[in-house]
């Protein structure tokens, strides 16, 4: 700044110490409160924008009658975004959501699954075989609800791949 006034304050600060007089104090106070108000406003705006509506989707979903899933079959259940398999040991639920970036995997004709977004391959047990996915497809907890008379799944509860539901 070339147009600054040559005042005693500046002399003082140029000598290496700062003298806090009434004018510089009020100056500092004014700048400080503007900065504080601005910071608070930005912080609150970020908090406002990070708001999440209360209540979340239930992770427990009905899958219908067990009879819909005959032995040696695979069925995609859209509402629950998973595959229900039925092998010789019983029923199980395999998540269709790709652990890489969340697309839905598709069954291959000769067994296993492929993610159409980035070509990750999985075997029938959900193990990642190739492609960018490093985690397996999750097996999800499955049970028969006597009261409702239908199969239920909890999408938030993974189980070991070997777990089967026998009815």
């Amino acid at each position, binding site marked *: 700044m070339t147009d600054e006034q040559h005042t005693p304050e500046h002399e003082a600060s140029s000598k290496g110490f700062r003298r806090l007089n009434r004018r510089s104090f009020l100056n500092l106070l004014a700048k400080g409160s503007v900065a504080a108000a601005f910071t608070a406003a930005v912080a609150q705006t970020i908090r406002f924008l*990070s708001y999440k509506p209360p209540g979340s989707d239930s992770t427990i979903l009905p899958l219908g009658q067990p009879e819909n899933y005959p032995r040696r079959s695979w069925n*995609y259940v859209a*509402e629950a975004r998973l595959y229900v398999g039925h092998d010789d040991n019983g029923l199980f639920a395999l998540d*269709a959501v790709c652990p890489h*970036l969340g697309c839905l995997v598709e069954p291959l004709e000769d067994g296993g699954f492929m993610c*159409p*977004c*980035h*070509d990750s391959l999985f075997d029938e047990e959900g193990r990642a075989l190739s492609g*960018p996915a490093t985690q397996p497809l999750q097996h999800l907890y499955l049970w028969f609800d006597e009261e409702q008379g239908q199969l239920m799944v909890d999408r938030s509860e993974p189980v070991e791949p070997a777990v089967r539901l026998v009815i």
Partner: protein
Amino acid sequence: MSNRRPNFFAHLHPPTIPAREMRPFYTFGLGGISLLLFLVLGITGVIEMFIYVPTPEGAHESIRQITYLAPYGWLLRNMHFWAGQLMVGTVILHMARVVLSGGYKSRRLNWLIGVALLFLTLVLDFTGFVLRWDQDTAWALMVGTNLIKSVPGVGTVLHDFLIGGESVGAPALLRFYTWHVLALALVAAALTSWHIFRVRRDGGISHVASTPRANREQLLRTEIIAMLLTLAILTGLSVLVDAPLGPPADPTALVAEPKAPWFFLWIQELLRIASPFLAGVLVPILVLLVLSLLPYTLDRSQEGVAVWFNKQGRIAQLVFLVILVGCIALTLRGVMR
């Protein structure tokens, strides 16, 4: 003409500019064309807002009303779509012109504003694509928001900030809508004004000293020709080729071939081979960073301003072309799938 008082639009132009730099094959008018497309996008976009409904139930239905029922709605939507696609191209070509002809020398601040505008153009195109709320959108959004989650430390916070909840739904669409029609558009408008102001402040577009000058009328005439040609191409495309609209978004339906919008196909290709954070976050940031730093590192010489393929900037030009060709090659690989 010349004895009349210049009107406001004439006032936006310098009284004279160097004749050599006014020739169409120096800049190809790419900056001006990008500005024109941005204005077209603003106007057509505001008109679309009168019918478009930013809710998961209403979005797809209202786009069909714009496209099939509202008079000339198809043309409006096609023009908005094609202006958006063309602008990605003209902005990138404009950037290429600036690098290859040493345009950023001694005006590096404006180069940085330009890189920010490239980023904004891509984000505006992506948020606009999301508003379609069809099946392609659903997957691109799923992948994009999960990518954000892969950022170490702040990923989940950023993710929730973007989509306003645990999973993509009504709050996410409303947020993308607000970013698209107002927040990002305002920032882009402000930066564009600054970008153009800087050109005037830096003494007009970059030029070689002491060349004959052309006057404002000649400049205006050239600009009007470029404008009419651009509008002719835009209208022609919009009449002949319809903007795509797939089936309504359904996050539970299996889709055979989910594809990112074309300007992000190169990232989708990278995601097939590298980890999400590396391919989807680090590499794009790195590309922007390298571009930003070109005039600060590889092309610091003040020589070669306004000279196509100037010797002093060869390395920077090469680096830029390698990045550009790499992105184009990956994009083509994605298109051919």
